[in-house]
């Protein structure tokens, strides 16, 4: 029965070793997908390379279906699986600021680590910038505390707020993803930039 670590006595050392091994797989997958290249990531927003869309949604659907099936076959106690807490204003404003950071900086935190790993110097600077941004948030936290805590709805699921079952939402997400994959493939033909792609 999963999740294994919260349900069993596991030493800190083993727990951290598992963290490292999971991270190893995470970093390997990100780099293999090409997320170690900022121009490949940015291609998503100009249509010449939609790898981000394909990898991101395929990964989300794979894990989403995995969790649904683990739950269905009672192999996982979903009541102790973490569901993100929803504070609507901070989720939206935080997301908007992150989106600006994405198009300006060309990475997100996870991808910048995988890019830094293969020697992308711009990724090391992005990482440094992230630390600065977090420090800035920490130092100015009293200014944002109200926004940060506003409009708390709890660890709510989208399926619950729409009033549909988890399975039906999953089906909608898969249908939406398939349509977006098709759009992505079309975009790559329409906005293809062989001059950029061959350099990546």
């Amino acid at each position, binding site marked *: 029965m999963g999740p294994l670590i919260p349900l069993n006595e596991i030493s800190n050392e083993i727990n951290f070793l598992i963290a490292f091994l999971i991270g190893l797989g995470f970093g390997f997958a990100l780099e293999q997908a*090409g997320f170690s290249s900022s121009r490949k990531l940015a291609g998503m927003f100009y249509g010449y390379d939609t790898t981000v869309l394909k990898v991101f949604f395929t990964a989300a659907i794979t894990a989403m279906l995995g969790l649904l099936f683990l739950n269905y076959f009672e192999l996982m106690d979903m009541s102790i699986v973490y569901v993100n807490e929803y504070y609507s204003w901070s989720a939206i404003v935080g997301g908007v600021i992150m989106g600006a950071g994405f198009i300006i900086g060309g990475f997100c935190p996870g991808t910048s680590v995988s890019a830094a790993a293969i020697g992308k110097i711009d990724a090391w600077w992005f990482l440094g910038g992230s630390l600065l941004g977090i420090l800035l948030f920490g130092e100015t936290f009293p200014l944002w505390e109200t926004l940060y805590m506003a409009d708390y709805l709890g660890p709510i699921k989208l399926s619950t707020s729409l009033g549909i079952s988890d399975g039906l939402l999953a089906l909608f997400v898969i249908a939406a993803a398939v349509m977006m994959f098709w759009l992505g493939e079309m975009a790559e033909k329409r906005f293809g930039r062989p001059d950029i792609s061959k350099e990546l």
Partner: protein
Amino acid sequence: MSHHNYITHDTKYMNPYIAGILLGVVLLAAFYLTGRGLGASGAMKSVVVAAVDGVAPGHAQSSHFYSKYLGEDSPLNSWLVFQVLGVLVGGLLSGALAGRLQWKVEHSPKITPRRRIVMAVIGGALFGFGSQLGRGCTSGAALSGMATLSLAGFVTMMAIFGTAYALAYFFRKNWI
């Protein structure tokens, strides 16, 4: 780029759908083992909290933000810090197998390496700031959040990608 790619043999990157499944399996494994998904910005926060606590412990204790993450143990002894160290090594391994290890500043020919670095620092700072306000980045909030069907995950994902699309026109020179 004359190195041999031991993984894909002919093309440079893995097929994106296969890479997505691989990433999804890793994410699912994280959930099955720990009950939580993946993360990245959380580890960076631990580094910042540890640094502030090291330089000015009184200041860290009195802050409503830093103090949440201070305990008996160093903030660096956290699951996500070890996971992100794994990301670094996993990326290095993949890059080595694919013949992609090289020190370089990747940038559009229309901008200088210096401008690229300035933009990377500004973008990183925005992402770091936003990830704290939004309680997680693309990994912890958007990707892991969507896998559990959380409303926060979908909203954060749409806010990140929607904003990046909305602003793409203004920053096009940096990329295309």
